[in-house]
């Protein structure tokens, strides 16, 4: 990827709520047009970081900037660049999907709001539900609407706070594809997640946040390499081949610790079955 300017830069960020130190000393930077995943358990401080970066919360110490604009002293400039999809879906339940999008379009003074609203509805497969109250939507639909509202402002930097929490596996994978596409088109995506496989399959860079500190940071590959060696695994087409290989290996004096047949994960089973049966193919 050619765009290597720094999109998000965080230096020695500190934040406490009353006596509780939530962020101790957090520093990282995110190159433009890449996906950064902040991985951590509940209470690690992920949402606090997102809130500070999206100008909703003031840090106690350190600094953070988006495209060079300080999130505290230049919040107006920052807000023009960013969009946030928080953990709690920021949609109006009693309004319809169309009205929700229309509201945001009006607030940002988008020209031709009606047409743009229609485009986003169809992009996120919400056309059929467009004129229904959001309170009747499923979790996945609400999330899609929420993200559509975030994207309406054409952000350079998109913050997604646990974007796939509460989504079924199918919608989750659709969300991943969608996020990858966004980054491909130049948007910097900063997301938080509790799921290892999400960070692994999505992110260019991962930061592991624990109790307010970044424990490790780097590409998923790098993070795996820094762990001590844990042995190697051979894969074979079938069990026969594996048995043969074991014989050959023991002839040459290499000890095989054990053999186990390769079972598909439950997720593979689920997705294969669903995909065969699914008529309405949803993408995010």
């Amino acid at each position, binding site marked *: 990827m050619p765009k290597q300017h720094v999109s998000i830069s965080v230096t020695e960020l500190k934040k406490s709520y009353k006596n509780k130190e939530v962020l101790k000393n957090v520093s990282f930077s995110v190159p433009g047009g890449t996906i950064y995943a902040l991985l951590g358990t509940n209470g690690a401080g992920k949402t606090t970081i997102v809130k500070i970066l999206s100008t909703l919360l003031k840090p106690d110490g350190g600094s953070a900037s988006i495209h060079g604009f300080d999130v505290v002293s230049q919040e107006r400039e920052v807000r023009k660049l960013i969009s946030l999809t928080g953990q709690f879906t920021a949609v109006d339940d009693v309004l319809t999907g169309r009205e929700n999008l229309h509201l945001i379009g*009006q607030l940002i003074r988008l020209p031709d709001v009606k047409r743009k609203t229609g485009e986003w509805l169809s992009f996120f497969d919400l056309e059929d539900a467009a004129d229904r109250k959001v309170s009747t939507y499923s979790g996945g639909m609400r999330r899609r609407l929420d993200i559509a509202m*975030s994207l309406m402002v054409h952000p350079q930097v998109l913050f997604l706070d646990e974007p796939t929490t509460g989504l079924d596996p199918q919608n989750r994978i659709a969300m991943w594809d969608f996020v990858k596409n966004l980054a491909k088109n130049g948007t910097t995506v900063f997301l938080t997640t509790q799921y290892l496989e999400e960070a692994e399959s999505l992110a260019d860079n991962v930061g592991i946040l624990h109790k307010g500190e970044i424990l490790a940071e780097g590409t998923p590959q790098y993070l795996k390499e820094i762990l001590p060696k844990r042995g190697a695994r051979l894969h074979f087409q079938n069990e026969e081949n594996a048995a043969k290989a074991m014989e050959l290996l023991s002839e040459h004096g290499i000890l095989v610790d054990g053999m186990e047949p390769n079972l598909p994960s439950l997720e593979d089973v689920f997705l294969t079955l669903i995909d065969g049966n699914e008529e309405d193919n949803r993408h995010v």
Partner: protein
Amino acid sequence: MYERKTNIIFDSWVMFKRCLFISLRNPEALLVATIVPFLLMFLFGTVFGNIANVGDMNYIDFIVPGIILQSLGQSSQYSAMNMTTDMTKGILDRFRTLSISKTAVLIGHTGAGVVRNSISTLIIIGTAFLLGFRPQGNFRDWLLVIGLLTIVNIAISLLAVMCGLLSKTVEGSSGLMLPLFILPFVSSGFVPVDSMDRGLKLFAEIQPMTPIIDSFRALTLGLPFGDSLWTALIWCVGIIIAAFTLSIQIYQRRIS
């Protein structure tokens, strides 16, 4: 400077439309804003009308302003609840990252409250007419009545928004509105102040509901109103300024 000013107006207008939708789509709120005022007017007009003694006045004529203020307080609790809902859900974060004017959300909820309450008021006056309300005010009096009711309405809606901002839970916000339901009963709204105990009478005379009710009555029935109209206006303007300033401060504190 000029640009920022137009932003506030535009943002508030968009927010007002949003809040109006929210308010008018809540079946419970709509019921409280329409059926309840009708029932209140109807019950007081028919059941109590026969036993109440308000001198040589017709009880229907006497009671209209009291019922109006009573139901303004009741239907305004939905403004408070809607405000708390916004404060506790994610939508406010979205508005904030969009850099919209800070006061737009407050003005939107206040405006929507004023519209909903005006519907209640019209229903009450309509019902009163059916039950025999016969106002004698001329055109100028009615203009003053409309002006007075609008200012009262803004003041009460702003108080509701403030209660909504103060409360941490949606249920709590309507609880904070309780004084507004009670004040009309301890005023000249339902019985003449002169018929009250001394302590009660003193309270009724100094609280804002009494001058508002007296002014309405004087304007619609062609009675002398003395200082009551001015007192009512001063109360309302004072409440509007205080509630608005406080609301902005509470809002700022809660979002930072």
